[in-house]
């Protein structure tokens, strides 16, 4: 079909459009020349120079710390929210709840960032907390918007899975929390891992929210990169950027690979059980 060939072409072209700039960035991070547009031969000196840049290294560690906390909290909160949206029936405020969970997906970051900062300032005036803005306030901001992403990923999974297992366990007298941890969690594990990974990456990447709610001395990696990038393209930044790309690509790929493998072995096991049942019935 002619239609199909055109769309195939667009898919390949689109992927090239997405990946070529990143590839170019990585290649140029090995450029020996300080002039970023002139090729001066291969060199790894920009990478070696990074380790001596303590300011940058501190920002990296701070960002990784925040991203870890965010991944944990957002996965827990997002899973709860997804459970509410898919398993708990009607309750008062359900529409409001649904709206609050999905709205952060599209809300412009400048609005969320400014409004959260004003909340923290008002809270500091009223109850004296948080006195200092830093890791904790950035963590709260990141958790709030990552929860939305996790709940979308997890709730689509919760709708897909076969509920007969949960129902069977309930019929046999298992408490709801036991059903959740022993039956539901193993079945939705791939989406939990994906949600956690996504939150980690989103937190590591966020510039706008962090700029609004951070305080003095709590500069994150994106803030550090942004202030350098504003001055123009620099070879050191190319090196940091390439390392981040490498790190996240490997993590994403590993996550994808392992969840896919786990999924396949689970499906095979289920098929085997059904096969045995059929054999015993015959």
């Amino acid at each position: 079909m002619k239609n199909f060939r055109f769309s195939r072409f667009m898919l390949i072209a689109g992927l090239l459009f997405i990946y070529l700039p990143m590839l170019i960035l990585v290649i140029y991070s090995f450029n020996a020349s300080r002039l970023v547009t002139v090729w001066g031969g291969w060199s790894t000196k920009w990478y070696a120079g990074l380790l001596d840049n303590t300011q940058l290294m501190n920002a990296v560690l701070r960002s990784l710390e925040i991203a870890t906390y965010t991944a944990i909290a957002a996965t827990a909160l997002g899973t709860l929210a997804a459970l509410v949206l898919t398993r708990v029936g009607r309750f008062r405020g359900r529409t409001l709840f649904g709206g609050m969970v999905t709205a952060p997906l599209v809300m412009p970051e400048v609005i969320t960032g400014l409004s959260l900062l004003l909340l923290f300032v008002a809270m500091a005036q009223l109850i004296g907390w948080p006195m200092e803005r830093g890791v904790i306030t950035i963590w709260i901001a990141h958790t709030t918007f990552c929860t939305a992403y996790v709940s979308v990923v997890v709730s689509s999974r919760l709708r897909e899975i076969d509920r007969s297992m949960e129902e069977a366990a309930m019929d046999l007298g298992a408490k709801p929390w036991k059903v959740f941890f022993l039956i539901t969690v193993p079945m939705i594990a791939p989406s939990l891992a994906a949600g956690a990974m996504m939150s980690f990456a989103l937190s590591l990447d966020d510039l706008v929210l962090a700029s609004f709610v951070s305080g003095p001395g709590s500069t994150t990696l994106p803030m550090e990169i942004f202030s350098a990038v504003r001055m123009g393209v620099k070879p050191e930044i190319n090196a940091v950027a390439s390392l981040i790309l490498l790190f996240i690509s490997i993590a994403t790929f590993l996550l994808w690979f392992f969840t896919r493998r786990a999924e396949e072995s689970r499906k095979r096991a289920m098929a085997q059980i059904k096969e045995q049942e059929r054999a015993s019935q015959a």
Partner: protein
Amino acid sequence: MTIREKLLGMLPKGRHAVIGVPFFWMLLFFLLPFAIIIKISFAEADIAIPPYTSLTEWADSQLTVLLNFGNYVLLSEDQLYIAAYLGSLKIALISTVLCLLVGYPMAYAIARSSKQMQPVWLLLIMMPTWTALLIRVYAWMGILSNNGLLNNALLWLGVINEPLQILNTNIAVYIGIVYAYLPFMVLPLYANLVKHDLSLLEAASDLGAKGYTAFWKITVPLSKSGVIAGCMLVFIPVVGEFVIPELLGGPETLMIGKVLWQEFFNNRDWPVAASLAVIMLLILIIPIILFNRNQAGEMEGKA
């Protein structure tokens, strides 16, 4: 009843805790801040910590509530702000259409490819959304600049005689936005297109509607909710986008996210920044409600 039992009784029970924890979190850190932002937008900038005046004052047994509409008057009178709002809407609208034009065929190709290939294509689309946006935008700075890769390639090919000014123009902003937001268009479209019942197309083909006719009469109308979700996921955040216009745009790029950032960080005028955000929210509230209802419909439809 012992005290212990009483205390335990006060703790929320299972169902309530499951609803309560995320509900309370979102209420406190997502909804309540909007009330505060509205409040601050009626304050006046002040040299103090925090840098705005209080709305209420208690003196001589009198409660004075002072609402300052000055910020809103300023926004409606100053051409700069109006131009920034219109500029944001224009750029968001054009980039949403561009994303749809590029993203629809991509999503269609993935949805119609073999079952084994689908996860691979999806991973390739998803992966960039998980890698730093800032870095991907930065990569374009090196490509589009006057002595960058694109200009050098075009000069070498002899297409142009002197470098084109692309970086720091709106063209660069469009490239950056389409580049950054394309996955958000493709994913919901794919999720929708892959669910289509192909027997409908077969039936159409048997009845004589082939190729383009079947595509426009069946596939496109069926994918409506995917198109809405994709367009909203692009349009709404782009209206408030800051990073892309700041790094790729130039003086001609007037966008409200950038103006808000400058008011807040450079002029330190929190009340004006707050009122800019309130107006932006008012403009976006209808698309956001549309998105939420579409999203809720999707969720309930499948449940």
